[in-house]
């Protein structure tokens, strides 16, 4: 898609993708609070335009690595909602057979190296995949999604150095949502994140992460550079998570760590609402958008119902898959 304008079909498919993430996670959020999900869940609600904006420039042959907040990346890159839901429910039919859960969802058949419970862990994996992509010589690229908090892991700088030296087809996508857990970025992160790339000669830019088109265009430039052998790019996408760090945080935090007014201001800037508004401006009718939303609602409902009904893994399965 990278160098052309988007057709109506493409725009609607993007809308579908963002809405899928949103509805999927709203469901998860509710399930998490109801205690059905075995482990912790970190949702991506509010950041959808980043994952979808980047992944809309990719093919199944490109690689992505993700974070503890990884459902959005998984879905945007083409992972199956039902397989994801079942994994998070801990079922045998989950994409990882119930071994991984929310923080480890992966689908290698679609280039999804996976979510990662180690903050910053995906950056090095993507750099390695970028090396593989370069050796393959087929114009593939590798994307590392990570947060503003992860940008303080030194491995990010190590990766920029190697990627710059070797001109690896690597795109570092830093989703700056202003917080790492309960710490404000300003308290734990010095300077401007996108500047960190400059010293390595890695082209970098800041984009509005809640503006799909802006993310998509920047991704297009970065992907083109990568595919042309021109090396890595750093994108800082400014965005916000509308939910808490982890869905259970209200049960244990002593007090709030964000102003309600701040959350409200960002809710006004909801990336999906903004995208819908753009579509409504002469591209698609309200009915068309609603039809998509209902289609997704049905899909999510079905995925959740299936997940709840699917069998738990056979305990014996625990002893498989450690070694090839």
């Amino acid at each position: 898609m990278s160098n052309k304008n988007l057709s109506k079909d493409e725009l609607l498919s993007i809308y579908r993708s963002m809405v899928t993430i949103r509805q999927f996670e709203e469901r998860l959020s509710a399930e998490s609070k109801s205690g059905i999900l075995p482990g912790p869940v970190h949702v991506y609600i509010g950041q959808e335009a980043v994952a979808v904006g980047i992944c809309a420039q990719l093919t199944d042959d490109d690689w992505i690595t993700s974070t503890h907040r990884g459902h959005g990346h998984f879905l945007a890159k083409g992972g199956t909602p039902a397989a994801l839901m079942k994994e998070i429910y801990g079922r045998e039919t989950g994409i990882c057979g119930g071994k991984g859960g929310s923080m480890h969802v992966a689908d290698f058949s679609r280039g999804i190296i996976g979510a990662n419970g180690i903050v910053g862990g995906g950056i090095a994996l993507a750099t390695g995949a970028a090396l593989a992509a370069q050796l393959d010589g087929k114009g593939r690229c590798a994307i590392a999604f990570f947060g503003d908090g992860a940008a303080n892991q030194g491995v990010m700088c190590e990766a920029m150095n190697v990627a710059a030296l070797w001109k690896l087809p690597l795109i570092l996508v830093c989703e700056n949502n202003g917080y790492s857990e309960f710490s404000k970025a300003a308290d734990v992160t010095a300077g401007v994140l996108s500047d960190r790339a400059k010293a390595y000669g890695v082209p970098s830019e800041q984009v509005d992460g809640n503006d799909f088109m802006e993310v998509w265009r920047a991704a297009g430039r970065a992907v083109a550079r990568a595919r042309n052998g021109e090396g890595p790019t750093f994108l800082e996408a400014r965005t916000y998570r509308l939910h808490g760090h982890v869905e259970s945080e209200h049960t244990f935090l002593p007090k709030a760590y964000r102003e309600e007014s701040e959350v409200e201001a960002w809710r006004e800037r909801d990336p999906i609402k903004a995208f819908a508004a753009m579509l409504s401006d002469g591209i698609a009718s309200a009915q068309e958008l609603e039809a998509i939303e209902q289609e997704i609602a049905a899909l999510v409902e079905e995925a959740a119902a299936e997940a709840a009904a699917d069998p738990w893994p056979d305990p014996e399965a625990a002893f498989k898959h450690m070694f090839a």
Partner: protein
Amino acid sequence: MARLRMIQAINSALREEMARDPKVILFGEDVRMSLFGDTKGLFEEFGPDRVRDTPISEVLLTGMAVGAAAAGYRVVLHLMYANFLYTGFDAIANQAAKLRYMTGGQIKLPIVFMASCGGGRSSAAQHSDSPHPMFMNLGGVHVATPGTPADAKGMLKSAIRDDNPTIYLTAGGRGGSAGDVPDEDVTTPIGVSFCAREGTDITVVPIGSMVRPTLTVAERLAKEGISVEVIDPRWMVPLDTSLILKSLTKTGRLVVVDEARDLCSAASQIAAVAADQGFSDLKAPVRRLTVPDLAIPYSPPLERAVLPDAEKIEASIRELVSYKAG
């Protein structure tokens, strides 16, 4: 005496030691808001100099702990989950464990590296390891694996006052089991094991999280006339095997229960000591009840399949007490 959960016992140990000694400082990611609750309120009480939220930079943090300790402070570094000790492993392994020795004893390194360990909460492979055996093999660091809230408090207080680096690992995440904790300023002596229950038929040595289910099982079996002695070593380094060996002279039978993976586990170490120093007392094979050499899976039935629990402990004990040399 108060009834506290593990995490509350830790919190009170930190508070008391920070109040006692102004050289004690605490840092780590989100120690103000406190993901687990163990550092709750300390920022408010001791202020921004001594209680600091850090960036996510474990490689740096472990090294900073060494530098600050070498320069005169008593450092508590909270690393959240034991798996993140791997992220900051370099300075623990190459600096904290060696700097005093390499420099001919010029310095002391009073550091507590603390983290939550173990499985059972569907946190999956990257948040569920029990890595005490690696630190046992490292040399140069103490390793604390308290099994009760009272020891969690007493051992942490001892570790903070001690002049050596300590890896302090507790199971239980945000709560942990509840237990009686003395109100007074009580420390638990370093490197001293504890007979948690006397018995005559078999010796069971549970590590950390395994203490509670072992005691439950021991109680249950007592009703059937199986008399289980439970020795809690408490510290993996320095490892006190004296009570274990003494107990063996009585029972001749040993099971070690460890939530670590089997190969080179604490269970293996204790079994090896028994096979050496306790050889002439042994009446039966020495059993290890450990985690298979696997990552910890997410889904509850899978996780249950790999973790030791009361049921598996009971089965091991039954099997071993009925062992007859053939």
